[in-house]
């Protein structure tokens, strides 16, 4: 789903939340997705040890996706200044969400120059293919991980999606609520 409001909210959170709180959220999201998609690591196993940096347009922090050789799991964390990565992906939040949830084709995003990559192309291609197979719905995965809080969270998301649809029809609404660029917190 293309959602300017969702992108604005996430962009704000990724830029403005204090690092420990944001890292908690990233750990929770990575664990939630892998809980729902245990086979994700299987397609990535040959590339364990790879570290892929993610730069989001309009977000001044960088993130690091690492495939652990030891646990076979994927971790997502805030990248330190100058931290080394084997590959780098750059794109908008909406392009990255679309890629994560399989709503856009990675090659088409690359042809359109909406997505750029550098470094270890093989690890990035493997990640793209592994994610594409998983049919990830980020919100659904997060709800599933919330246990007893899933129901109120789902209700909040239905309201949020309705608001998103409204914001999509009136883009100035989103801009007024979340002016960019977001300030970075360290």
């Amino acid at each position, binding site marked *: 789903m293309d959602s300017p409001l969702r992108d604005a909210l996430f962009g704000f959170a990724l830029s403005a939340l204090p690092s420990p709180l944001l890292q908690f959220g990233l750990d929770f999201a990575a664990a939630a997705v892998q809980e729902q998609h245990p086979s994700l690591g299987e397609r990535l196993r040959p590339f364990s040890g790879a570290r892929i940096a993610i730069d989001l347009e309009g977000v001044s922090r960088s993130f690091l996706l690492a495939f652990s050789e030891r646990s076979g799991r994927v971790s997502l964390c805030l990248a330190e200044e100058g931290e080394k990565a084997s590959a780098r992906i750059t794109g908008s939040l909406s392009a990255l969400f679309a890629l994560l949830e399989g709503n856009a084709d990675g090659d088409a995003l690359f042809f359109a120059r909406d997505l750029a990559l550098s470094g270890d192309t093989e690890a990035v291609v493997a*990640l*793209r293919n592994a994610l594409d197979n998983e049919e990830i719905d980020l919100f659904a995965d997060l709800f599933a991980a919330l246990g007893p809080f899933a129901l109120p969270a789902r209700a909040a998301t239905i309201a949020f999606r309705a608001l998103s649809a409204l914001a999509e029809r009136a883009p100035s609404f989103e801009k007024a609520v979340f002016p960019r660029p977001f300030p970075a917190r360290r």
Partner: protein
Amino acid sequence: MELVAPAGTPASLRAALAAGADTVYLGFRDETNARNFPGLNFSPAELEEGLRLAHREGRKVYVAVNTFPRAGDEAPWRRAVDKAASLGADAVILSDVGLLDYASRRHPELRLHLSVQAAASHLDAIRFYAEAFGVRRVVLPRVLTVEEIAALNRQVKVETEVFAFGGMCPMAEGRCSLSSYVTGHSPNINGVCSPASHVRYETRGDALVSLLGGSVINRFLPGEAAGYPTLCKGRFLASGEAGYLFEEPVSLNAAQILSQLKKAGVAALKIEGRQRGRAYVAEVVAAYRRLIDAVLSDGQAPRETVAQLDRLAEGQSETTGAYGRKWR
């Protein structure tokens, strides 16, 4: 005309079936097929599940075992054929004469299709494969005009399948060594042209530069649509001018000539792109489902359906390739 859709993952297979594909083609997760990309393809268990899903809906699954076995090491390719046969694949798509011979003797009930990788582009070659191995369908190389396809179909007894949409090999497939020269890995044996392990992208100034095996092969300015990092679509300096010598970054789209292909006697239309995401598979297959249904009923391709595929194309540009012009 049968619509044959690509699937690089089980999710793409499901997307293809949901979008209206008659058939899905796929490969095992190794070098026995020509899309041996990282993180792509099917395990035997995933193929088994895919076959179950497809057959439940009355659709088919073809398994591509279409690279050429290494000298003295044909066992992985034979195992792939055996596995496809034992799981109940509707056909295997093969290129190598040795493997065709093995499959025809070992699995006489298994339907054999000749891969585009065999580059069988004329009557004698097609007759040979049909008579020697019982090949039932030939996937024609992308070097023939519609008239040449029609002439072939008047003379051969086997079915012909042609590419309708997707990445274009401008070379004679199965015989191209451009990528091998630069990377040391053969598309025809290792199953991947321009392997990702040898591809790098860099930003130089304001340009996106693509490198293959350490050599710069293209440079895209801001706002210019990018293409695959293949040598056949590299930009070369000749006579002091940079340009595309072989082919521009462009995808095949035969949407406008479907009625001609139907009249030419083509049995099946193939969508290229097992390496693409399920969003591509869903969109292209759904568009071609509408196009084929329209052509089969009144001969008119819906204009808006043709236009919507532009942004999925390599270089965001499309061509009818050799169908409309003599191969150079």
